[in-house]
């Protein structure tokens, strides 16, 4: 009996809109006789190593073909031959049509295609059933410098992981997962608990984890991530036959050679059903570590090949986890430090196409990496303080800023700009948004950068640098343009009351651009993060981020005291004029 089939909404959404013939792999998780297809990768028949980018437990379960919907069984069987985790691979046929493509699914049972039905499952439902485990550890790699030597060293490293000498631990607890010996391989836990159970219990396992106890009803979605670290057993309890035992000997080789000495920072993800037993995690964690090493190895080898013998060009590999909204699952990418985003553009383009993702916005630049709770943020500033604020109750159409920004406000980094720096701070918030979305790698400009820029372009006299003079929307526009190459639209209103009529334009901005808006003019400067526009009543509410806040980075105060919150039209000064700077988003990946 082939398992029950469910397909992620994200996979369906992407497949129903694709208009080109293509062939790809389907990746899924099998749990309790239900197969969940969660990801796809278009490879058009080429060899695909994409699996190493996916969390462990997601495996290749079938193929998808987008075309005229005609099935050539022999060809189908041939392309399905790579699927080795199951006897009943899935075949998904997607017929291109003018409207939505139609999708049919088949299991290959005993070499015959059998039509099957499928349920569509939302991202929210997937992650209420599954959670992620993030293994973070370090492994030393000492190797020669040739491609063969490095490859061999990676093989050795992976082999060592499978010898049962590694031990996993939930940090700051005494729960250890051992490879063998002691009864069920678990130390510090009694019984045979499931992953879901240990998350609920007050075992301290969830401390410092990306975990939310109170499941909110419906989206927004929280992705639960359990952290695990690794230990190495340096004693041996049971002497197995294949291990030859002898007193320590030293092999000293005094041949001069070049050596690659590397600390590999493992950061590997797995996905696991909440009903899975904790004892099952051991094998999964070993596999996730191996999968990570394969991903890294490919990048290291590619890098050493491009160096062409000049080892000074050799650069450290680094990995990032991405969670593009339209994918609905993690994708881990390995880059090397020296590769600029520009150099990686072609690679990203290929990936966007392989994953059927939009080609107008960056998704796999380093800045787009998924931010796990507890990951150290360099700046220490709050990110997206508006999240979790109650809606305005205006009952209209809501359009908000898309993606991440940092909250810049008065008196940060020991600088007393109280009374004059609000527009600078709002500009910084805007700049941070472009940085977070990967549109620029430039640092968020400092006050000095901003002032110097305005002097350089001739907008201000040279004594402006170091002064405490205000800037307005036009200056914000100039600076974004000259420092980050971002153009902006300027909207003008002659009085605060007139802001009430800007609903449609702002809705449109947030829907198409999604960038935060700076507003200034006769009086104070603010950042607009979104609008709630009711076109029946004509009422409008603005989601405001106030740069005049002088306190510490305390989210509770900021939300409670309305430093970030919904405001009505009366928020704006009736007697003052306003300029809004609406940054336009470039098209790129």
């Amino acid at each position, binding site marked *: 009996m082939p398992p029950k089939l469910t397909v992620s909404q994200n996979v369906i959404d992407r497949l129903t809109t694709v208009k080109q013939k293509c062939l790809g792999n389907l990746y899924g998780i099998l749990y309790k006789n239900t197969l969940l297809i969660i990801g796809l990768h278009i490879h058009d028949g080429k060899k695909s190593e994409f699996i190493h980018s996916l969390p462990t437990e997601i495996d290749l379960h079938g193929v998808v073909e987008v075309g005229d919907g005609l099935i050539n069984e022999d060809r189908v069987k041939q392309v399905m031959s790579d699927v080795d985790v199951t006897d009943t691979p899935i075949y998904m046929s997607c017929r291109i049509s003018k409207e939505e493509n139609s999708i049919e699914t088949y299991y290959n049972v005993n070499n015959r295609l059998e039509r099957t039905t499928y349920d569509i499952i939302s991202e929210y439902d997937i992650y209420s059933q599954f959670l992620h485990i993030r293994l973070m550890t370090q492994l030393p790699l000492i190797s020669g410098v040739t491609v063969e030597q490095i490859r061999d060293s990676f093989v050795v490293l992976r082999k060592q992981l499978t010898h049962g000498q590694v031990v996993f631990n939930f940090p700051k607890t005494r729960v250890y997962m051992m490879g063998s010996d002691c009864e069920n391989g678990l130390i510090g836990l009694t019984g045979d608990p499931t992953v879901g159970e240990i998350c609920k219990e007050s075992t301290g396992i969830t401390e410092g984890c990306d975990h939310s106890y109170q499941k909110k009803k419906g989206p927004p979605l929280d992705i639960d991530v359990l952290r695990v670290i690794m230990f*190495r057993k340096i004693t041996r309890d049971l002497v197995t036959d294949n291990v030859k035992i002898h007193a320590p000997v030293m092999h000293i*080789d005094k041949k001069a050679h070049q050596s690659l*000495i590397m600390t590999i920072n493992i950061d590997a993800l797995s996905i696991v059903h909440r009903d899975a037993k904790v004892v099952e995690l051991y094998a999964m964690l070993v596999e996730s570590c191996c999968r990570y090493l394969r991903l890294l190895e490919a990048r290291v080898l590619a890098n050493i090949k491009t160096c062409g013998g000049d080892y000074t060009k050799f650069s450290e590999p680094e990995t990032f986890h991405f969670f593009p909204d339209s994918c609905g699952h993690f994708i881990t990418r390995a880059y090397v430090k020296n590769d600029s985003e520009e150099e990686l553009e072609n690679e990203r383009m290929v990936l966007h196409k392989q994953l059927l993702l939009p080609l107008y916005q960056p998704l796999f630049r380093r800045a787009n990496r998924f931010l796990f709770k507890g990951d150290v943020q360099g700046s220490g500033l709050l990110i997206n303080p508006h999240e979790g604020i109650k809606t305005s109750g205006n009952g209209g159409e809501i359009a908000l800023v898309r993606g991440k920004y940092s909250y810049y406000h008065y008196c940060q980094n020991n600088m007393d700009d109280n009374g004059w720096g609000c527009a600078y701070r709002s500009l910084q918030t805007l700049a941070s948004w472009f940085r977070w979305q990967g549109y620029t790698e430039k640092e968020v400009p400092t006050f000095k950068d901003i002032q110097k820029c305005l002097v350089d372009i001739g907008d201000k006299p040279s004594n402006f640098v170091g002064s405490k003079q205000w800037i307005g929307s036009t200056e914000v526009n100039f600076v974004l343009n000259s420092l980050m190459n971002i153009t902006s639209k300027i909207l003008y209103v002659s009085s605060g009351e007139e802001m009430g009529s800007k609903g449609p334009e702002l809705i449109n901005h947030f829907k198409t651009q999604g960038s935060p808006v700076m507003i200034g003019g006769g009086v104070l400067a603010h950042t607009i993060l979104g609008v709630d526009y009711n076109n029946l009543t004509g009422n409008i509410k603005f989601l405001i981020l106030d740069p005049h806040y002088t306190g510490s980075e305390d989210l509770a105060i900021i939300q409670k005291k309305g430093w970030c919150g919904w405001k009505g039209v009366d928020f704006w000064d009736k007697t003052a004029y306003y300029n809004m700077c609406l940054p336009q988003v470039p098209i790129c990946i």
Partner: protein
Amino acid sequence: MVRSAVADEGLLTYMTNLAKTDTCTVGLILGQPTSSKDYIIHFAKTPPCHGDNGKNSNTGKSPKKFADILDIWVADHARHATRMLPGGMYVLGIFVVSEEDILSPFQQKIKTMLGHIHRRLNSNEFLYGNPNIPEKLVVNYCTTTQTYLCKSYDIETATVKQAEIKFQPKLAVKWLQVECKYELDQLFPIIEERGNWPLRRHMQDILASINENFKSGVFMFDGEIRDGDDCLELVGKKRKVPRAKSGHHESGELKPMQVTIIVPCDGRNLGQSLELRSCAGQIRLAGHVACKLWLHPKATVSDASQAVTQDLVRSLAARLEMHLDSLIEEEHGSPEDTNSIHEPPRRVLVTLPNSTVTLSDYLFPGEGPQEAQISLQELLDIEVSEQDAIKDIEGQADLTELYNDGLEADTDEILHRLPRATNRNIYLGGLAIAFLVLVLSLVLHFVKNYI
């Protein structure tokens, strides 16, 4: 608080038996110190100084007076004896059998001698020669009065304190046994700048990194993780769920506790995350160190963890010292030794007479129990008659296998065994015999086929 020590009555007999007119005998007190009392396991007479024809006029003869004893000689004995002690056991002090009463007044000579011992034991930190307490015991058996007296001397503050020793008939300490097998397989690159370091320095460097590694270790006793100040005795007890295999309190004799050590994988020894280095070579250290030790009944889990660490590091340090001392020439001088296998001596366990506690000895390749018997006699004054009292627990490496590994890595190199001052002939003899046997069997094989 008065320092107190307990010992079996047998040791008093041993001491009194050493009493002879006109001689003075010095020896080492071996045992385990605790905050409340010291458990003495053995007295070991310092062998007579068959020194070089130098300052000592008494060469060959037993010294008459305590003042005649060479401090350095006793200190050296202490170092050799320490190598043979399991973790948690130390040279606690000295005993002196003499005509004169040397403790009242406390002779200056004792202070200098203990000072020598202390410094000698500290000279290689990885031997863990000195316990954390600065006091050393001195037991004096005065043959004139036929009485014994005990004092302690604080090395740090140079003060003499009261101390007592009790010799109990049939002293039965309920030692807790702890054992494990430590597995080593590590590659240490020799970076170019250190290419001309002597081997000894590389070894100290490697020991330091191994020693450091233990500090972050998590120790499990019979698969349990406990608080450091929990009593070791509690391990295996007070379990809520009775387990099927919790059977080690059955028949009086305590089963040894198995220690599992795990260390976090965080590569802290490696520094930067990516380096390309020119290396002058590399050292691969591979094999097992067997550890078996005894702890007094009140020992805590952290006492035990420390003792295990000390045992393993001490054992490695001891065998490396012995190996380096035995090398004929400083190895880095000879250019043909580009690729060589070093075999430090292996650990064997020796059961003490009248005790469950075992001490260690180290045997070079090719050496057998006979050699252990000799060194035990000399250094610890123990007669081990039955060969089964000496347990070869680690085993010798199969060199042909290592040889092949080496060849695989480096086909055009020839592995050089290092000539050693001691036992060289025995070993070569062994090889020759093995070769002869091979040839003979081949010959026989062919002969058989022809007939």
